[in-house]
């Protein structure tokens, strides 16, 4: 099984990039991360980076594939964040959204919290997407608004969970590991990215690209063409299984 990965992370119209993407592949295992720090003032960039780095280093120290393994990485990351908080003597909260995708030889599982997303495309079509921990997502789930209305809802920034040690039970894990098929594509992205690239555009650009680099390039074009001045950081990590 071969994996083609690319990622991009751009501060957009902001001074500080609070998004952080990273990945590593060791033997048959892969670990892919997208984190978007919250907080606004310094702290957001620290949180996303610290959590991502901790997960990668747990993965490097003990690569493997299972939901338990993933949970172990997540737990270590929560500890790392907690330690950072005390080390920095920061009473202010260090919070971040988080999406982690873990792949084994022919399987994948994931975890997410907040409004960064994971999409899975199979046979060129959207097969799965994570549900945000946000107020508009809940409103959409209850039928109060349509799914399309999430994107520009006035409460778009109101998250109902983020990654920190006190929120651990809100992290959602994939139900069961998914068996990978040739041609499967994953997209992990921050809200600053998916806000401007709708799902049908993700599919369209997918059809026009054979590599992840090209795929991301086309989608980034959408972000740039639609985004307004001062827009949010945007980041994405794309992966093709072949």
């Amino acid at each position, binding site marked *: 099984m071969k994996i083609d990965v690319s990622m991009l992370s751009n501060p957009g119209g902001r001074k500080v990039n609070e998004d952080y993407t990273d990945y590593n592949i060791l033997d048959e295992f892969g670990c892919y991360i997208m984190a978007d720090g919250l*907080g*606004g*003032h310094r702290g957001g960039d620290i949180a996303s980076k610290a959590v991502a780095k901790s997960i990668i280093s747990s993965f490097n120290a003990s690569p493997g594939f299972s939901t*338990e393994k993933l949970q172990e990485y997540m737990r270590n990351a929560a500890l790392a964040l907690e330690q950072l908080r*005390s080390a920095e003597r920061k009473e202010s*909260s260090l919070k971040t959204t988080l999406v982690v995708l873990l792949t084994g030889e022919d399987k994948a599982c994931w975890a997410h919290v907040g409004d960064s997303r994971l999409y899975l495309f199979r046979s060129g079509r959207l097969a799965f997407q994570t549900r945000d921990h946000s107020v508009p997502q809940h409103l959409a789930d209850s039928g109060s608004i349509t799914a399309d209305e999430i994107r520009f809802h006035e409460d778009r*920034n109101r998250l109902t969970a983020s990654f920190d040690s006190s929120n651990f039970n809100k992290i959602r894990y994939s139900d069961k590991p998914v068996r990978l098929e040739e041609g499967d594509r994953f997209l992990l992205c921050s809200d600053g990215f998916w806000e401007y690239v709708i799902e049908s555009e993700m599919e369209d650009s997918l059809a026009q690209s054979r590599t992840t680099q090209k795929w991301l390039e086309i989608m980034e074009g959408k972000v740039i063409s639609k985004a307004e001045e001062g827009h949010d950081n945007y980041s994405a990590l794309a992966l093709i299984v072949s």
Partner: protein
Amino acid sequence: MDIDRLCMGCMTEKPGDEAKCSNCGFVEGTAPESPLYLPPRTVLENKYLVGRVLGQGGFGITYLAWDLNLNVKLAIKEYFPQDLASRAAGHSQVSAYSGSMGSQYEYGLDKFLQEARTLAQFEGHPNIVSVRDFFKANGTAYFVMSYVEGITVKEHLANAGGVLPVDQARGILMPVMDALKEVHSVNILHRDISPDNIFINKKGQVILIDFGAARQAIGEKGRSLSIILKPGYAPEEQYRSKGVQGPWTDIYAIAATYYHLVTGKQPPEALERLVEDPLEPPSKLGAALNDDEEKALLKALAVRAEDRFQSIQDFQDVLMGKCTGGVTAPTPAAINQAAGAAVKTETEKKAIPLSLIIGVVAALVIGAGGYGLWASGVLGGSDADVTTDQSVGAGPEVENEIDAAVNEGSVQTEANYFGNSGGNISNGGLAALQGDQIFFRSNQGGSLQVGTSGSGETRAISVDSAWFINVSGDYIYYSNRDDNNRIYRVDRNGGNRESLTDNGAWFTTLADGWLYYLDESDDYRLYRISSSGEGKTRLSEDTAWSLYIEEDWIYYANRDDGNKIYRVSSDAGQKEKINDNASSSINVADGWVYYINEDDGSSIYRMKTDGSENEKVIEQPAWFINVADGWIYYADEEDEFSLNKVKTDGTGRVKLVSEAVRYINVIGDWILYMDQAEQDNIYKVRLDGSGRNLLESGF
């Protein structure tokens, strides 16, 4: 009054110049726990002497204080939204972060003062926290409240075993509703009602504290900040910036509080209820409400604001029996009479039932070990100062009744050497066995419950989210997930609950009167503390993970040395390394150390306790091993984490459960485990794999 002798921990005057207060143990000159706190002996407005911190939350800090003119104890709340502002250590000045954070800070500050001003109108109201003064200083604002001794309803509920009788719950909440009516009449909402914002003072009076205007204000303007609401109590409109709030908002929260008190369960989060409402009627959970009361409560808890009562009065009318239910509820007048007879309350003050007062007074007697309890904005709900002193002994009558009921079963109360098996502790300590009593973490928010083997009956002990449960003698010890994993102990009736550590503890194991644990605040180094919370000692310099105690040795994986297994003697006198593999899930039994060898595909290994005869038990990647009575129970990674057992010599493998499991606990005739697919739900199954069922069904 010699101010220099005034103890900053409890505001009593010390007899001499000694640094340590004999009343509360506070040592003069102790630096504040956080550099963000005002240092003790700071003077505000030339008349308020600031003492230690009583509580801190996301939006403010509450200090104990002393009025230098009137010579009375006070509580002072400081506006301090920690996401928006900071303070340099040793300085008083608070500075807001720049940009939009700064304007949010100012907006919240305005609301904070506005609220103080409005609340000051209610000064002297028996059921509303008394705001005596408010002022701006140090770039922030303060309000000064009377210091009241008592406990929060959350504490009271925990002391009572997690559930209150309906009469008592109503007795607490009626005065709160009366107070709310008055507050609503001047267009203020509380916005943050929950069991930890309702206080019961020494006289048994109920006082509403910690109005949430500033918090809400920041939420409204906030960008990308997680909303800080109390899940379960906050109605859906509070989650939305365009949600219309009104009396119905507080009505929802008070009904949610009522629901929690009488069922022992917090209602599900309002946003979750929007989708598919999992709220169970209180009567189904055992609350003795009549039909009309139940209907009223559910109406007040309606997800959509328009379906709720629109005024407190309407809600009260139904609750107070202006309806034709089969059960006659006691009228508030009767409740007042009962209370009035027992306690000298001023006649116009609304008080609560006698039984409750007895309970509260008892709690205060128990808590008389020097710490007062405060009425203030205990923002974020740090109830750390509610300490109990078990030496004071006898509990209230109510507890004795429960005692009698419990003693009918065969209860073994001798202090056993171990509080739980190490194999269970390695698996989260979801349950501990004593005689035929099983103390367990329930599927209801992890609250601590007890069941009797063979009876099918279970009973709540504490609402705390408990894990690493140990039981010895009359006490249950556990790490409390609701309070940063600090170790708590509580007696079998839910009384004498107290926290024993300041820091979070993992792998908490009771052995021979000592609690051994990995200290969360010290990078998970190994400590021990006596079972009454004294003599804290660090046993090893190594950062550790996993812990197993056997024969005066503590085994752990040393994170400073590639997770190799070390052992240290319980007096820390000897330490040795016993293997060379990255290891996890350590179990020790019959002279062997069992572990998962991470260097060899997570296979199960064993070696003698001195490290000799290292051998592979089974070639199978495993998780969560638990060794009991000659069997190793484990989750098989190659088989989707199914639950299996194999003899300790590697033979006789049997598959017990095909679902993916984690946290395998072996308790008497049962195996308890969590289902991987269902997050926190705990299941039980017999040792042979039969009788699988959710934990609620009893034993």
